[in-house]
């Protein structure tokens, strides 16, 4: 910093800034837990099982160069370029679930019958940027 302050005219490279971009990003797109119980929603009168449900969710920034790590299609990178270079009203790629797992639910119907059903895509298991 001192160098920079003293001779503004000559371009200098600040190594700490340079290396900062290689640190593992702190708030990058990733899966987050969210445990809830159906009693919180007052649904436990008719949802008998499971007692706890962790749907999980995706949150975080999508890295500027979205590589294969997120399984993102090439379009994601193109969208990033549009946002940066052509039209910033076009949103950056979003961090969203890419894969899900099913959930089994046991419920009591209004007529007293009991139903066990397996629902598709009820728990997010993987995130992507797109």
């Amino acid at each position: 910093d001192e160098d920079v302050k003293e001779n503004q005219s000559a371009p200098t490279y600040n190594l700490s800034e340079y290396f900062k971009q290689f640190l593992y990003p702190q708030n990058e797109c990733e899966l987050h837990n969210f445990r809830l119980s159906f009693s919180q929603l007052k649904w436990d009168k008719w949802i008998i099982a499971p007692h706890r449900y962790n749907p999980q969710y995706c949150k975080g920034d999508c890295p500027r160069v979205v590589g294969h790590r997120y399984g993102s299609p090439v379009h994601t990178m193109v969208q990033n370029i549009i946002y940066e270079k052509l039209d910033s009203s076009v949103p950056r790629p979003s961090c969203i679930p890419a894969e899900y797992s099913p959930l089994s639910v046991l419920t009591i119907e209004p007529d007293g019958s009991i139903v066990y059903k397996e629902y598709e895509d009820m728990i997010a298991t993987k995130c992507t940027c797109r």
Partner: protein
Amino acid sequence: EVVSERPPELLLVPEDEPPELPPVLLLPPGVRNGYALLPPILKVLSDQRPHSWEGEAPRLQPDSRALRYMKRLYKMSATKEGIPKANKNHLYNTVWLLTPYAECKHHPKDQIKEDLRSVDLLFNLDRVTALEHLLKSVLLYSFDRSVFSSSAITCTCHLAVKENDPSGQVCPNVPQSITFNLHFELRRHKWVEIDVTSFLQPLIASNKRSIHMAVNFTCLKDDQHHNSKQGNSFNTALVPPSLLLYLNDTSEQAYRRWNSLRHRRKNPMWSRWRNNPLADSMKEMGTENMQNKRASRHRR
């Protein structure tokens, strides 16, 4: 925004429809009818006023034994986190336990009153949708341990399934009936399942909404006489059975278990695991995992 070849149609909801339908424009054409089919949990999730369920009519509480049976089924079918277990014998993704909505008891003259020997049961199948295909159906009897102390029991069951066809068909089909004996030790068993799949398959396939069964179920301890008082109290304790339907739901929201099983079967790793599920394949897979991890880390 609906993207479809046909211009979106406005869905006019008649005044007398229940208000919990989402605003008209939210439903793309053709889905409106499907809405009624949405499984209960998705109805609530898609309802705009989440607390509307509290104002609903009180629910009929199921029989505690039936509830206990279904909780046990749930534990067998799903993990603690609620994820369906991958079991190749477990092909159903829906199980309905229905209690009869009507019972007609018959008291043959020479029998003692309050005897459950002959009972007509009516089951309402309105809730079962056309996309829920029957795999197996079972009549479920529960035996109360306090009454049925441990002993060998012989039961005689006469079962007749009648078509409850209001269409007033002139020559209704001849009811299917069967009589058979059961002999088992009650010490270990608390439930008796009577497989009636072959009876109900044609009725459910032809979309019958009501199943009418005449059941005559009498049980005797092996050391009792036919007409002894104790034998009759034995039968008095029998609770009318529930009807269990194991189904494969092919709707969008249901877990496509068949696909995932087929996918697993194709995966060679899975087949090796299956053939040799002992430690060495675990170890082998473990080492492969380590190698994979090392390679990817090295690449990164």
